[in-house]
């Protein structure tokens, strides 16, 4: 068999088996998440995007739970006051550890960067798990910090 055909066969087999086994593996990466990461699948938005200023209003109203999806180290340095730390990969790895809260509660997801794909992926994941009011803070924590909005810093 031609070498290129052999290479193609090995690559395609790895890909197909990988996707298939991940569907069976309870700790696997579901195809839905893979498609979401490429913005395939449903084009209907199941979350809301808000600016940092609008998010500040929610913060003062105390009507939402802030979810910090950055790494735990970053969270420990500083984070939005009252936010809970659920690092991005942890959210998918152990969704059962997600705080037991009412599905109608407002969840505000934020990452460090301006328009993080991780924040959108997390928001869609949470919306798929039945949360009806999921919001992504556009601008991320960096803009929140730049504007001098309230943060909790790690006490040394």
């Amino acid at each position, binding site marked *: 068999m031609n070498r290129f055909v052999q290479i193609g066969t090995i690559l395609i087999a790895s890909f197909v088996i990988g996707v298939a086994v991940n569907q069976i593996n309870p700790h696997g990466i579901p195809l839905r998440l893979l498609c979401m*990461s490429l913005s395939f699948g449903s084009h209907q938005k199941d979350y809301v995007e808000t600016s940092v200023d609008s998010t500040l209003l929610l913060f003062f109203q105390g009507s939402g739970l802030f979810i910090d999806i950055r790494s735990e180290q970053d969270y420990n340095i500083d984070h939005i006051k009252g936010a809970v730390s659920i690092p991005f990969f942890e959210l998918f790895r152990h969704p059962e550890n997600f705080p037991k809260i009412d599905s109608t509660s407002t969840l505000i997801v934020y990452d460090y960067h301006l328009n993080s794909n991780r924040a959108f992926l997390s928001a869609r994941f949470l919306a798929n798990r039945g949360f009806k009011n999921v919001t992504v803070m556009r601008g991320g924590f960096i803009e929140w910090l730049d504007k001098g909005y309230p943060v909790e810093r790690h006490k040394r």
Partner: protein
Amino acid sequence: MARQGISSREAQKVKNRLIKWTYLLLRIGFGSLLIYASIYKIGSPFEFAEAVENYRIFGTDLSLWTAVFIPYLEAIIGFALLSGLWSETVVLLNAVLMFLFLILVIQAYIRGLDIRCGCFFAEGESRIGLLKIFENVLFVVLSISLIKLNKIVKHS
């Protein structure tokens, strides 16, 4: 003259046998190494995706796809090396894989990333450093030797 001819033929025989054994040893060594490296990654794809993302080359999306694809590619190449199937193609793919890993490790070292390699997920796996680079250079050199030995064995 005749005695000299016999001894040179015997020397050639010993050399051929040495080449065959080294070839077999390298094939089994790389095959087992790749299968061993793939096992944990297949079981914990999210952890592997996080390890890939830590290299800060691929975004979250590509890290997830890499975690679905690479462990199975490693496993298939590993099994093919052990079985001797499509050996010319497989030793080439093995070398390409080793070379890619080396580039990843070197760029992480140059950029000063203080991360774990994510290669084997063994307890106490070493962080990226000169030792890790040396280890990967060794794998590249051995994988290139395997290509050469494969050619010699196939044509002898």
